[in-house]
């Protein structure tokens, strides 16, 4: 009898164990960024609209915590979170926008329709910042502390109940 004949059985047994273990685990639908707690990756993005500057990773190292909002004019939940971003801006929070795969005229129309909470907006036509920061969808919002470190990740649109949570995270990050 050859050990090779047992190989398929062993492999299958391994799979069974793995599948049984995974089935017993609770499902987590969110893809958490592995970058939380680390330095923001280096980037420079061109301006998305004429009257606001683009976004650079260096902007974040000025000692003041900020929000980095990954969004797009083609994204419906981004419209839903617009009032909450306005509320955060009214609290004095600085919000840097990264517009994913977007066009300047669409961005401008979105800002005139739904308000502009941003101090800077960078155009990320290749999703390079989005991928670099570990965001798997639009919208996502990151709290960046004054030293340019990623402190917190919020997945999905910001609802009214998330505003205090984000303010708390900003405070913890040294606001």
């Amino acid at each position, binding site marked *: *009898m*050859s050990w090779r*004949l*047992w190989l*398929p*059985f062993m492999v*299958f*047994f391994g*799979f*069974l164990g*793995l*599948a*049984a*273990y*995974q*089935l017993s*685990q609770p*499902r987590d*639908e969110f*893809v*958490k960024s592995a970058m939380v707690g680390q330095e923001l990756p280096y980037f420079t993005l061109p301006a998305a609209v004429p009257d606001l500057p683009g976004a650079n990773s260096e902007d974040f190292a000025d000692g003041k915590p900020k929000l980095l909002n990954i969004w797009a004019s*083609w994204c*419906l939940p981004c419209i839903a979170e617009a009032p909450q971003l306005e509320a955060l801006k009214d609290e004095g929070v600085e919000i840097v926008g990264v517009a994913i795969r977007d066009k300047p005229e*669409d961005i401008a*129309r*979105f800002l005139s*329709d739904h308000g502009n909470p941003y101090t800077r907006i960078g155009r990320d036509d290749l999703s390079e910042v989005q991928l670099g920061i570990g965001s798997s969808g639009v919208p996502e919002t990151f709290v960046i502390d004054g030293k340019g470190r990623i402190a917190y990740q919020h997945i999905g649109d910001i609802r009214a109940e998330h505003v205090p949570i984000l303010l708390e995270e900003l405070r913890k990050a040294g606001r």
Partner: protein
Amino acid sequence: MIAELGLAALWLAAALAALQLLGGILALRGGTESDIAGLTRPAAILQGGLVALSFGALLWVFAITDLSVKLVATNSHTMKPLIFKISGAWGNHEGSMLLWVTVMALAGALIAGIERRLPERTMQATLAAQGFVALGFYAFLLLSSNPFERLPQPATEGMGLNPLLQDIGLALHPPTLYFGYVGLSVAFSFAVGALLTRQVTPDFARAMRPWILGAWVFLTLGITAGSYWAYYELGWGGYWFWDPVENASLMPWLAATALLHSASVLASRDALRVWTIMLGVVAFSMSMLGTFLVRSGILTSVHAFAVDPERGSFILFLLAIYIGGALLLFALRAGAINEGERFSVASREGALVVNNVMLSAILAVVLLGTLYPLLTEAFDVRVSVGPPYFNPVGAIFAFPMLAVMAVGPLLRWRKDGFGRISKEIALVAAFLLAGIVLLGLLFGLAILPLLGLSFAIALAVASFLPLRGRKLRRVPIETWGMVVAHFGLAISLFGMASESAFTEEHLAALEEGGATSVGPWQVRLEAVEPVAGPNWTAIAGRMAVSYEGGEPQTIAPQSRNFWAPPQQTTESVLVTRWNGQLYAVMGADNRGGRYQLRLWWKPFVTFIWYGGLIIALGGILAIIGRVRGDLKRRIVRRKVAERRAEAEALA
């Protein structure tokens, strides 16, 4: 009443499956002459009839929308068109499982009724295995997913069907795959039967072959239809996403393709015995694994509507006893089966072995890529494996396989030399190299599309070479089957490579009256109109499209809102020309009178599915050829037996 009748028939069928298992086991231990062993075949046949009756009852309660049945109330709606009411019977977990056992029991009845080539002991063992597999599914249905469960109070209205599933293509897609899976379950039972009695013979391969071919044809059609559905219904413009569930349908196909070729070697040359048995087990494992991945929701996928972790556990249990049992049996018994006839590398068998190794490697690549996220998640790392892995890694094995596929059918059985077919090899190589050089210079394509197009052209030529120098009318039908199937693969490959090389995409925000273009097409959005359907409302963008400034034609893609349950879908419009498709999707959001349009021009994309259909046609021709051959052989055998009996009587 009808529902209770269906349930009673199902219980009786389960009892008969138990009898079938018992009879088979007794025949194995005692002998085929005992009383209960004699009942195995009738039990299988009767069981087929009872399950068919049960499934008929389910179709009936869906057709009349009997809202006192829980399954109907949760999955149907009185306002749905009749055809979707009926397809709703298997557009859910319970019904689709019942469809599965129905097809399986009918297949079991068929082999019990007509298969007489194999030694009776092997047949009994095969039917016992079939009964064992069926019994697991009956337990699943009757204990945890009874399709005929009544509600204490009949519902006033049904809860609808997922609108994405209200589509004729999708009404046919799951049954097609199930026919394929069931065909593989029969091959599995044959393999287990042969293992139990150690009778791995060419006759065994011949008995198994029509089932593998049938399964393979259905899987080919199922994958083709599913891919086309994803292409036009999901509105993403892609035809294959390497989604876990798509992979789950591809893996059995790859295994069945390998099994098909190795069974051919076993049937013709009595070689590759152990390997064929192994593939028989693997092919069915892959279909069970597919079912498990779809139903358990263990991997995130577009098929998330079918998810239920509890059912996942049940299927995992079935998977464990069927496949674990079969692999254990394989480990214990396969050592006692010798490998069979020898052959040289340069021979038809040699080429088929290379084909098998490459197909198995691709299968391993897909399996690994599909299950890898499952493995890393155990260590809390979330990854998703996509085209950047599957395309290049699969291609490493696919292109050598295509090369062997071009020349393999030209080789003779047992021992041959490449010198004998050097002219043909040179011809195919010339086409391949010319393709690479010309297409590379003309279009500057990326490596995979370039190789894909060149191999497609070379393979299309090569697939007809086995017919050279033969009288076409005397070529056996099964050889035509091979030629047609190989040609179909070339066509499909051409479509895939062309799609990835030449697709043009354009996203536009247009006002009514606005115009844009994509590839050779001019598109003008003439008007946006509201449309109402039986259970949805929509906006339709009426546009005039013209190819290279020719006569314009009107199309109207829709963005639909269903209300039971509320859900938004896109109805894309495809304009098909012989050389490709214009793909237009209407977006729902209206921002200041502008509408989002998504337009694609996809040259030769339709070849992907034409190719799939041609491959399936090749499979059908092969079945016709093989079954006809088997029938002729059977008639000859009977005549010989009659003559011998006559001669003996005279003597």
